């Protein structure tokens, strides 16, 4: 029986990188999973991390619910399919990285694409809003099959060395 859950590609940074791209994604799976362990050189303790499909910078929407250690909030976000506080920044506790997972079902379907995102930015801090946990419902209002994914950040210049990124394929056949 072919494997259901397969690693397609990985990128573990040994030096800084502005973005990470998974291209030429095979059309042989049903769903995709992207996982990131990320830290950027953002001047704050955190950064937003998001993905875009097929080189497109438009037609994305996100609704999130977030816990910040002192309160729970909900909002929307405009960049890609995002975890708005999912990456650690330069002033976060050293050697810590945010963890984010994107679940992309039916990536080949000729329909709009819903995405589930879960991101955590633990920072061993007593400062309010400097440790975050987020659940995000994302939507790409585009009916094209997904053939590439780029991972970006908002505030910092680069993802730093030690950040890691993985793309998995899930097959329901």
């Amino acid at each position: 029986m072919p494997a259901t859950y397969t690693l397609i590609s990985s990128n573990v940074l040994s030096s800084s990188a502005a973005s990470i791209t998974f291209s030429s994604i095979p059309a042989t799976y049903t769903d995709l999973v992207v996982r990131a362990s990320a830290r950027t050189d953002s001047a704050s303790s955190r950064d937003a991390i998001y993905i875009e499909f097929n080189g497109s910078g438009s037609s994305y929407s996100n609704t999130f619910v977030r816990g910040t250690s002192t309160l729970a909030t909900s909002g929307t976000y405009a960049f890609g399919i995002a975890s708005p506080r999912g990456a650690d920044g330069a002033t976060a506790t050293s050697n810590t990285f945010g963890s984010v997972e994107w679940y992309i079902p039916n990536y080949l379907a000729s329909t709009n694409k819903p995405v589930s995102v879960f991101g955590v930015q633990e920072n061993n801090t007593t400062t309010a809003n400097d440790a975050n946990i987020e659940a995000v419902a994302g939507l790409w209002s585009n009916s094209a099959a997904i053939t590439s994914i780029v991972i970006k950040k908002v505030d910092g210049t680069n993802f730093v060395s030690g950040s890691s990124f993985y793309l998995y394929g899930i097959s329901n056949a």
Partner: protein
Amino acid sequence: MPATYEKIATTTLGSAQNNITFTSIGSGYTDLRIVFVGQTQTSAQTVFLQYNADTGFNYSNTVISGNGSTAASYRNTGNNNIEGATRAPVPVSPNWGLYTFDIFSYAGSTYKTCLITANGDANGSGGVDYNVGLWRSTSAITSVKIFNTNNWSTGTTATLYGILKA
């Protein structure tokens, strides 16, 4: 080596209907996961979960949710189902909602816990729910019903996976 993550069954609706049920689930895995991608025909609707055709008031759940402007948390107790999504209902065309159901130790002899993620962004409406549900039964789970009060559209899909820890 036996596979850790295996597809058990998948259902894609060829016509509108208001439920998808997986039956005759074997006890050979540790946990179950269901991935549901759905669209409602008439108006956005929540998703309900039942096990083993149990319609008794043996279910409860606790939810955190966001609708893009406010966060909320609430609880249901003594229900005859687990309510899967309130602020992130299954949307109408052209959008699709994504729901995952992780059911832990489904074949064990303790009460059954599940984790539900509900993702229903509709580009200006909808929301996201994270939900923990409990079925107060010590029976092994052999069937899972996901259902709605209104019909889901053709093309709505649910896939059941088994996850094995040994």
